[in-house]
């Protein structure tokens, strides 16, 4: 291994999110975690194991520690590494052999990517979030639309987003088929990085900022592809199908497969609706759920928890609905507890868990049962992603919170009348 000093490991995908002191029940998961621990100790790699205050989903942990900085190249054996692009870093997921290659050589042979500009003009309306931007982008360009590209998100609506929200956008670049997503570093970025454990200090910070300011795309640069969206036209978005491109505004209804001209899209829609057990024409707002999952590297950061807590405060999770709130990292959990958010969730009847990937994927004990339906702030609604036979609707934290209260897919505005 060439550079243990440039490498970090955390336990996220298959760890349980409760009873951390008990041994991991699933023998295969336990073996995997034990193997990671042994390898990290043998090779001198820094590891944040379960129970550690810095443990959590890798894409939440890196930025939080200040390890993610503008201009860096960051890779990880996980496709949502694109999250770190929010800092103006080139960050992308790699496969296991590529991880081996990086560990052995600290390099990766690659062909250059194509460039795509996704410009989001205007201002987001209240109740509409970064998640809705990216779901709308994916619905517009399709799950293969970004293939071969690195996307730069730009425009007034992107510039006004917080770092957390920018991470949500870049996170799901992969769901549009793109390898990575980036946002030019600006004052918001510098302010977020400043003072973090691994951020440059004092004069180094000033020198770094000088350099970071130079990382913007040149005026008049030409991209290989361009997409433009208007934030004012966006509303809360929700998926109805089994890929993240199969989404509609929450105000709309389940589409009729016969309305798709492209035969492949039509067949995919038919198959998705059969799996999701949804009838064309059903208003999305009338779809009731069994489970609400708030968490993941898409929406498991402090700001996501704050937004959801705001909506759920003083209300109750609907009867028969299970809500899981899973902070992206133990630091996020600590901060949320300090702000009293954990209590708000618990008082509403939600489960307030320990950090991990949890129900984002069916690889740990938190899973949907066959036929169960969830509203989930995660990033993938593939068949069986949250557990065999589980049905997933991707939503923003706002929609997740409102849905938990009403028991049906809802936006915060729907709660006013309750």
């Amino acid at each position: 291994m060439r550079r243990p000093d440039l490498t970090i490991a955390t336990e996220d995908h298959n760890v349980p999110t409760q009873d951390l002191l008990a041994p991991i029940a699933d023998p295969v998961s336990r073996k995997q975690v034990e193997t990671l621990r042994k390898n990290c100790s043998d090779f001198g790699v820094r590891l944040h194991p379960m129970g550690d205050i810095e443990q959590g989903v890798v894409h939440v942990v890196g930025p939080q520690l200040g390890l993610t900085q503008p201009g860096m190249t960051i890779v990880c054996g996980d496709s949502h590494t694109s999250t770190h692009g929010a800092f103006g870093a080139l960050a992308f997921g790699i496969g296991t052999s590529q991880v081996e290659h990086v560990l052995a050589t600290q390099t990766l042979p690659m062909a250059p990517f194509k460039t795509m500009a996704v410009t989001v003009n205007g201002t987001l309306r209240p109740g509409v979030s970064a998640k809705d931007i990216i779901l709308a982008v994916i619905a517009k360009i399709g799950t293969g639309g970004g293939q071969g590209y690195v996307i730069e998100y730009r425009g007034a609506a992107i510039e006004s987003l917080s770092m957390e929200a920018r991470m949500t956008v870049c996170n799901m670049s992969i769901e549009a088929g793109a390898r990575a997503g980036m946002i030019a570093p600006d004052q918001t970025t510098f302010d977020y990085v400043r003072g973090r454990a691994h951020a440059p200090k004092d004069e180094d910070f000033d020198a770094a900022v000088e350099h970071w300011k130079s990382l913007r795309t040149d005026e008049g640069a030409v991209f290989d592809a361009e997409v433009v969206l208007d934030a004012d036209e966006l509303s809360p978005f929700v998926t109805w199908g089994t890929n993240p491109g199969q989404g509609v505004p929450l105000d709309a209804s389940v589409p009729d497969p016969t309305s798709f001209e492209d035969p492949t899209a039509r067949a995919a829609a038919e198959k998705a609706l059969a799996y999701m057990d949804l009838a064309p024409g059903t208003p999305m707002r009338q779809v009731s759920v069994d489970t609400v999952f708030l968490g993941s590297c898409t929406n498991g950061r402090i700001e996501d928890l704050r937004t959801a807590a705001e909506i759920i405060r003083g209300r109750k999770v609907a009867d028969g609905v299970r809500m899981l709130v899973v902070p992206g990292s133990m630091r996020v959990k600590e901060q949320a507890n300090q702000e009293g958010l954990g209590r708000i969730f618990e008082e509403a009847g939600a489960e307030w868990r320990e950090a991990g990937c949890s129900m984002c994927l069916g690889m740990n004990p938190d899973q949907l049962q066959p036929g169960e339906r969830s509203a989930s702030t995660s990033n993938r609604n593939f068949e069986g992603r949250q557990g065999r036979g589980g049905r997933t609707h991707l939503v923003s934290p706002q929609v997740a919170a409102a849905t938990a209260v009403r028991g049906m897919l809802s936006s915060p505005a729907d709660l006013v009348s309750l």
Partner: protein
Amino acid sequence: MEKIDVHTGRAVPLRASNVDTDQIIPAVYLKRVSRTGFEDGLFAGWRGSDPDFVLNRPEHSGASVLVAGPDFGTGSSREHAVWALRDYGFRAVLSSRFADIFRGNSLKGGLLTVLLPQEVVEKLWDMVEADPTTEVTVDLVNREVRAPGVQEAFELDDYTRWRLMEGLDDIALTLGHTEGIAGFEQARQRWLPVTQ
């Protein structure tokens, strides 16, 4: 890595678009720490729930070429998707569009992914459905796919082709450039973070 030059075998028609890697191999199989023996996980969801799924049909057993719909391999970057296909016995996957990461993984892992026009894919589907014993040849030497009545060239860069034909591993190739890497590392900005 096993060398590939010209491969001939029977084909399986997978008439589905957007087959994501969660379908190719569900997440539960990723918890193993080995690198082989993933054939049982291949399309486990579909194989387990649908007796009519192509891979469950006896007439396609032993096939080694998968003819898939567009956007094959989307979703998670899990390389196990490649291993599962390879462990099951597939040497090549043909499609009109692959997800990038999956494609990269496959070409590194010795599974030949070949881009063909959708019409050719459809033609192969029809042909193989009509006669499951039809043999398809994937010829890396001449960069073409052949089947009765089909002769279609495909593109693959020279470097990847050479590597596949030689069965060469990337790490060994890169370690030949150690000096260049060391030079690059010397120029690293002092403020950039280290983890230790």
